[in-house]
């Protein structure tokens, strides 16, 4: 984004800040609304655009720090085998697992196949997750499973042959040739023939390889990471479609046989670049639906969003609309929310998200007074990855 636009955004923020302060201090009604909007509406909008990376953990309501990630089909079979006892399958306690089938299977495709075949790209990005949680107080065991899929990813650098050539292959070729050249020189210095070198222990080989690597004079991984960072800056608005589904089940004890389904959730996020060479805009469509069981009856919670971004990766303005229909045993709420706002990354993943909009209660318990609002909040955005 150029300086002219940045200045305009700062100006808008400066004008809007006093409005927020007024809204907070004005009267109970507005204060109540801001609080309500933040908790039930605005937060919901943020989450709805974010297809969770690990849907099973989202369904469980916790995000464990220790996630098992088997790297072979054998590891996975071993893990699952340990959940069996006396002929019954048991729900493991506080267990979390994420499987990338593309990593479990031996790759049978080349990079050029990946670039040309959508099915291969789909499989390599597929993620399956599972998690469990035991509540010691109630004795209820929860088990969740989820799947995350990417149907389209135009921002995938692996498909960009020009980027690969100039920013990765050229550097990697140079690095590999230099590393090998210095390794060969060290072999000669130490009087090692190729046979003798190959017969060395891995530790001794590593010593030689590390010494040769230091002479190369540049860090390939760092150079490529920086190139990718730049790539993301210029390709932030590429089209992408993500989908995730999760199921949550509960059992009164640890036996899998007594388990009952409590919740189904799905998320769909579609990001579209307005046209081919556009670098400043993006359309976002998001859908989140939860089917939740309450007193032996299932209720539906739906929200659909549309957002249009204008700007650059770390500074962008947006227009947004959300339709939400929450139906549960206590009440039914149907709302339409629209807002205009700005998102600015001030440091790494710390973002300021400012929005002002109008909420229309179409049905249910929301009061008619709550038809307009102004919000300002600081947030750590959800892990919404466009790349």
């Amino acid at each position, binding site marked *: 984004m150029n300086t002219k636009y940045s200045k305009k955004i700062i100006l808008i923020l400066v004008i809007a800040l006093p409005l927020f302060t007024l809204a907070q201090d004005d009267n109970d009604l507005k204060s109540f609304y801001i609080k309500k909007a933040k908790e039930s509406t605005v937060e919901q909008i943020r989450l709805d655009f974010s297809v969770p990376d690990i849907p099973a953990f989202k369904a469980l309501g916790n995000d464990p720090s220790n996630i098992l990630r088997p790297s072979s089909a054998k590891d996975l079979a071993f893990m699952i085998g340990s959940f069996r006892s006396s002929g019954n399958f048991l729900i493991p306690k506080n267990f979390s697992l994420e499987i990338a089938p593309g990593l479990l299977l031996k790759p049978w495709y080349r990079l050029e196949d990946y670039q040309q075949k959508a099915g291969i790209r789909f499989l390599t990005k597929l993620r399956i997750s599972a998690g469990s949680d035991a509540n010691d107080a109630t004795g209820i065991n929860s088990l969740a499973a989820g799947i995350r899929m990417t149907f389209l990813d135009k921002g995938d650098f692996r498909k960009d042959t020009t980027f690969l050539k100039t920013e990765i292959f050229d550097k*990697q070729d140079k690095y590999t040739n230099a590393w090998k050249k210095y390794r060969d020189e060290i072999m000669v210095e130490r009087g090692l023939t190729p*046979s003798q070198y190959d017969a060395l222990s891995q530790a001794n080989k590593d010593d030689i390889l590390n010494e040769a690597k230091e002479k190369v004079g540049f860090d390939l991984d760092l150079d490529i990471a920086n190139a990718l960072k730049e790539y993301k800056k210029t390709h932030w608005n590429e089209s992408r479609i993500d989908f995730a589904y999760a199921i949550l089940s509960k059992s009164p004890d640890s036996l899998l046989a007594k388990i009952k389904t409590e919740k189904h959730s799905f998320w769909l996020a579609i990001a579209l670049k307005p046209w081919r060479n556009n670098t400043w805009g993006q359309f976002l469509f998001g859908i989140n639906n939860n089917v939740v069981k309450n007193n032996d009856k299932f209720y539906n919670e739906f929200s659909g969003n549309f957002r249009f971004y204008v700007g650059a990766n770390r500074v962008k303005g947006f227009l947004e609309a959300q339709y939400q229909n929450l139906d549960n045993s206590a009440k039914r709420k149907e709302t339409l929310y629209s807002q205009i706002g700005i998102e600015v990354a001030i440091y790494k993943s710390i973002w300021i998200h400012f929005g002002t909009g109008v909420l229309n209660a179409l049905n249910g318990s929301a009061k008619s007074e709550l038809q307009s609002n102004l919000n300002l909040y600081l947030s750590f955005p959800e892990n919404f990855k466009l790349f």
Partner: protein
Amino acid sequence: MYHVKFDPNGQLIKIQIDYFGTLTASYVYTLWEKNSNAKADEKSGNNQNSQDDKYELPSPVQQNAERIIEVFSTLTNPDVTDSREIVAIKILQGNTTLFSEEDPTGVQIAGENFSVVEEKIVQAGTTELSDPFIKLIV
């Protein structure tokens, strides 16, 4: 060290280098002289496409006895998730694939039989080395 037997009176020997997976790979193929640091041949390339990674070994064929083939490959994973990559080397004499004594039936990938295969799991944001040595014997 792998050992691959060839017919000294047979047709030309060729080497084909392939990569399976989504990572970028770059290699230096070296044909080392017998018990020496002298090089009979050296070529470099990458997996931008798989058509140009085939090389003929020098003729006459019998002079390749006891020479060593080295394929020094770097596998780079710039992504945020770990990835599996296979380096697959095919040594052919004429149109016949030669297998190593260590793996006499070869290793099948994508319906093709390869002479020597190395598999690596490359962690996100890192580069791994694959460096098999193959001695040609008669």
